[in-house]
């Protein structure tokens, strides 16, 4: 991937991205203001959250929802919204000081 401090001579022209699949290197987790937390007791492994997550950040193992890829989860809350049994809660990254 192009380095962030690359000069204009070093990058592909026209804003083209010529190395495929480099979304993996773009860590949208840094955008997050709230973090999803799953209650495994409530979860029925319907995997709707996996379908709806816009950043492919639901961690699934053996058809079971096991958590979140926090390097990429941007904290949008779609998973919490879509979960049919309210197993996901969005928690503020930083609690406001009292």
């Amino acid at each position: 991937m192009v380095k962030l401090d690359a000069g204009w001579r070093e990058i592909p022209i026209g804003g083209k991205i010529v190395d495929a699949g480099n979304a993996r290197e773009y860590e949208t987790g840094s955008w997050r203001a709230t973090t999803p937390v799953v209650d495994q007791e409530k979860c029925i492994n319907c995997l709707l959250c996996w379908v709806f997550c816009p950043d492919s950040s639901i961690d699934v193992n053996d058809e079971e929802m096991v958590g979140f890829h926090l390097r990429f989860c941007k904290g949008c809350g779609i998973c919490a919204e879509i979960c049919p049994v309210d197993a996901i809660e969005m928690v503020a990254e930083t609690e406001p000081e009292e």
Partner: protein
Amino acid sequence: MSRFEAMDGNTATAEGMRQINPDVVAAYPITPQTSTVQTFSQFVADGEVDTEFIRVESEHSAMAACIGASAAGGRVMTATSANGLALMWEMVYIAASNRAPIVMTVVNRALSGPINIHCDHSDSMGTRDAGWIQLFGENPQEAYDNAIQAVRIAEHEDVLLPVMSMYDGFITSHSLERVQIEDGEAVRDFVGPFTAHDSLLDVDNPVTYGPLDFYDFYMEHKRQQVEAMKYAKRVIPEVAADFEKHFGRRYGFFDEYRLDDAELALVVLSSTAGTARSVVDSLRAQGLKVGLLKPRVFRPFPAEELADALRDKTAVGVMDRSDSFGALGGPLFVELSAALKIWGVPAKIVDYVFGLGGRDTTPAQIESVFRDLAEIAETGEIKQLVTYLGVRE
């Protein structure tokens, strides 16, 4: 073998396109489209070209389809005019920013409103900062020759910028003149095969076009476009030299007529230069040292070369067939004034906005410009910086 034919500018351009045989032409098929595309679509229907002709629902879509086809790896051409170009606006910038080497003929016609369909340069002058190379042709021959050279310029791997080839609406687009049409094989040989860069259809080397490009990279990409324009200044004369070798007609950044020993110079684009030449001749016969400079390349603006050509003139009159409301004068005047100042040319320079919306420009009007210049040269005084030639007071 080359042949001579009586053709208007649009037919000559369409004939050039037939010989170039582009992979894709996308165009909006009704007004303000030109007969260039109509004639070319007949070639497609008759199987004379291999071109994929895409009829779209607007000029905006026409340019969008051209950009897509170019990204997919095709040699792409189109044509438009006036408000059609205005409707393309957003996409015109994107074509240049994506570095799509599209060649587009723009038949120069006035922008509405009030509604007008006749010649002036407000359409393409409006896009002068869009990042396209801009060539202005005087007559059907130059329209044909520029279209062919434009392909080579656009696709040069140090350039990769879209090119607009302009000529005057109706005056050139619809008037028959003698045109030397070159042998089709020779034209194909001159333009050469198309090499796609980062084609979307090359599935082994996937590429993304048009991603978000914020404050962290946008400026670098703009800087690249500036560099490509600088390269274009090298490539345009190279292509012209090769064109001359193939076909014998000479092209440069601009054309000079009796300019060498002239004291008074007129600068004007496109078809008006033809009328101006005869005025130069008649004033020369009266002993006036007058000459003409007709720019062909407006983007990249050959500032230093123009300054050099006008270095020893006493007075320069620019004729602008479009205005830049609220600016110092028309676009050609403003840029040329800056060039003369920066390269230390002492000539007095004045502007004449003329021919808007197709208003006729007579030899008498052009003569009046030279008379003004003679007075300026004599008195050293500019009475009026911008004059509206032929407007009713």
